[in-house]
């Protein structure tokens, strides 16, 4: 796949930092699944992918639709709200 069709992401997770490259058309939900798998997180738990304080939703949307630049820093956080 051409280099310009991919985006490298730096994802902070509860088990450390994951640096990975994805096709820009990858859906956010797939990125979340990949991070959970590669970092050994519990697949039964729910996580959100966050960029600059904003949750990337809906997760069916592809990465390219959020305008993420190469090297973008994101956070994988447990789904939930304060109570």
């Amino acid at each position: 796949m051409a280099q310009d069709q991919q985006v490298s992401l730096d994802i902070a997770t509860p088990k450390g930092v994951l640096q990975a490259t994805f096709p820009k058309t990858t859906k956010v939900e797939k990125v979340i699944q990949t991070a959970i798998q590669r970092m050994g997180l519990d697949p039964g738990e729910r996580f959100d992918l966050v960029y600059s304080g904003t949750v990337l939703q809906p997760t069916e949307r592809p990465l390219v639709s959020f305008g993420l630049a190469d090297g973008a820093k994101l956070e994988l956080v447990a789904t939930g709200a304060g109570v």
Partner: protein
Amino acid sequence: MATATELLVAEELDPLREVAAARGWYFQLVDSTTFILRLPANDGSWVELLVKCDSYPTLPPAWHFRNPDTGVLDSPADTPRGGAFFHSNGVICAPWNRLAYSAHWSRGPHGDWTLGDWRANPQTGATKMLCAMALRIAVELQGPYEGRRG
């Protein structure tokens, strides 16, 4: 000999140190179960926390806001507001914060939660590790944060 709490805290601090280094957060270990974490907010300021993990994981950590100059804890001037996690009582309102429990902390909003059951509380979700908690606070400071209380 290290206690089970000290061993677990040390293990869980490894990923937190890694994330802190990658994100430029300030991290300082105070003792084997206590650390300081300084996180950036969306207004360009930094929010400092003193985190006490004694009796962890039987009890959740205590996440105090700390003044970086004086070391005073939980002053309104150092306490964030905005969003649902930064409670008007001046505490992070989540089952993974010991200070959210009124049985433990006078300003704790929740008398309906049981401290020892924090991991089983549905509101905890996957926020069961120190780095997961820190990430949640970091995200709140970049998103719904609206400044300090005082």
